[in-house]
């Protein structure tokens, strides 16, 4: 097992898949010669050359349009949208074109493509470079939506996304890029649509995604150490397809659930999971599902302001403690 950072796992996954299938191509701004502004794609240009790893102009609609057109006609493109906030400048291509074309054409065309993007806050970049927008993508029928929390999952889920025949929006959480973790040797491919129970516990369950996973684990550890509360933690990993089986089975153990989201409050995936649990596990509910989210406010940039907004280990700890009180 090699230890890689979350950022290195990105290039590792892309290299694995590009080696395997020469229809896999990769495009984006400053991703080739410069290796990406987050240094997630270092080495790919040298390895696979300018035909397969291509720098583009600042033209996000063209980037995704090109990826779509190529996917419809035989390639398997990976496109980078540098910061997930920039999805807003090419949202039409994502939601009206990529997500709908297979359905609208009665299945005549297939859309095997991946859009990777750096998502989330915590790095003092201000409100236009810090959003967690996994809920934007989850709302749109026709998109698969993945957000890993560890280097191993980055590799395995990104590889699976590239092999998937449908469009996948792949969110890398930028506050995790420096995290290190073991990655299985050899080819590593995970499965979309699967959540993972990353910590066991019978008193409550915490559903988390991306950067909220390590925070939830730390909160759960402290809850156990301080108060003897044993909370399980579910890394949701895949918003679409959603692994409701794991979500529900874990819920039924305690009947007490908390969701921890980095996206702002209204209409987040936490609301979806909370509603699903209410709808389908109502008679097992011991407590209402409590959502822990960033408040419904744009993100501020100063250290203390931003830190106060994104769910922290302390806030998760406190909310679970108070909820079980």
């Amino acid at each position, binding site marked *: 097992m090699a230890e890689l950072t979350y950022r290195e796992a990105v290039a590792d996954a892309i290299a694995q898949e590009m080696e395997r299938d020469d229809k896999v191509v990769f495009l984006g701004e400053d991703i080739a010669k410069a290796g990406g502004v987050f240094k997630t794609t270092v080495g790919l240009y040298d390895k696979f050359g300018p035909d397969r790893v291509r720098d583009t102009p600042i033209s*996000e*609609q*063209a980037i995704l349009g090109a990826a779509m057109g190529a996917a419809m*006609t035989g390639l398997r493109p990976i496109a980078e949208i540098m910061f997930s906030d920039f999805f807003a400048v090419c949202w*039409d291509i994502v939601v009206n074109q990529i997500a709908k074309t*297979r359905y609208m054409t009665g299945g005549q065309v*297939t859309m095997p493509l991946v859009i990777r993007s750096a998502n989330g806050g915590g790095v003092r970049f201000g409100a236009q470079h810090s959003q967690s927008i996994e809920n934007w993508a989850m709302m749109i029928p026709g998109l698969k939506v993945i957000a890993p929390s560890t280097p191993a999952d980055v590799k395995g889920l990104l590889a699976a996304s590239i092999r998937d025949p449908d469009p996948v929006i792949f969110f890398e959480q930028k506050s995790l890029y420096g995290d290190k973790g073991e990655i299985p040797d050899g080819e590593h491919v995970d499965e979309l649509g699967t959540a993972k129970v990353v910590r066991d516990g019978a008193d409550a369950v915490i559903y988390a995604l991306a950067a909220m996973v390590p925070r939830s684990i730390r909160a759960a550890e402290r809850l156990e150490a301080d108060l003897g509360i044993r909370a399980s933690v579910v890394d949701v990993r895949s918003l679409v397809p959603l692994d409701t089986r794991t979500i529900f089975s874990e819920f039924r153990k305690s009947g007490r659930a908390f969701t921890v989201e980095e996206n702002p409050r209204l209409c987040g995936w936490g609301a979806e999971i909370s509603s699903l649990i209410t709808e389908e596990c109502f008679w097992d509910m011991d407590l209402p599902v409590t959502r822990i989210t960033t408040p419904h406010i744009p993100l501020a940039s100063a250290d203390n302001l931003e830190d106060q907004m994104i769910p922290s280990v302390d806030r998760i700890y406190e909310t679970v403690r108070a909820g079980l009180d």
Partner: protein
Amino acid sequence: MWRLQLEVRHLEQRAHDLFLQNLIKGTSHLAVGQEAIAAGCATAMRPGDYTFCTYRGHAHTLVRGASMTGVLGELMGKECGLLQGKGGSMHLTDAEKGAMGSYAIIGAHLPIAAGAAWAAQYNKTGAVSFCFFGDGTTNIGAFHEALNFAVIWKLPVVFVCENNFYMEYTPIGEVTAVEHPAADRAGAYGLEPIIVDGNDADAVYRVARAAVDKAVAGDGPSLIEAETYRHYGHSRADPATYRPDKEVEEWMAKDPIPMYRSRLLEFGVPEKVVGDIEKSVLKAVNDATEEAKASPIPRDELALTDVWADGGSAWRN
């Protein structure tokens, strides 16, 4: 080309009639008057080339060889429709024939067409991607991004602006900083300005053919502005009263169908040959109409299929 133009004309007229009988719902944007562009370009295209067009796309889909029954069936919301009734008038597609879709959001398909050209370039298939759009489309951002992108990557794509002088109800001149919405912008992408009489199928064929040759030679994209006029309103809902009578009259005199007919006769094609083609096209449209009418509406279950490549629509396990 005579046949292609007639097919479009009669099919579109039929679609118009079927509206009036309320057999077609929703909206529909006819290309009556603009047939020469579709026919001229399709004749320049080769099997394997790609067509990307707009909501005004019945013509472009048909001329690539899509079945008339499939087109009319789709407009009528029948299961025999090209899209099984799931897309409707604005999204006609026949991927097998290279008609890669009709796109109803202005501008979106320009970069998509560039993408198909990229795949062709990468796979060295020699295919060329054609992209049709209107004058009004030249003012949206995606136009600009796609043109620049296609040029710097030298993609084999032919952008065809059908300048019918109106974006919906507004004269293009009122909302555009230059006189020729496409040609006057070619220079912004290092391209030659090309303007062609869009009502002359032969003229269109010649510029389209040259653009194909350029693309195949690896010399990158072309941007063609074809001037034309639509005979009906923008869409089903539009009686087009905003157009000066004189302007309409002048353009009606330039109707591509009678013009092409005269030319054929002039060039010595016997009246009977010309007329027989007319008859056979009309018969084909009639047959297709009957077939589409007779087709059942889509099975309800179809609503739930083909979101994903596995054929289904599940978002959960």
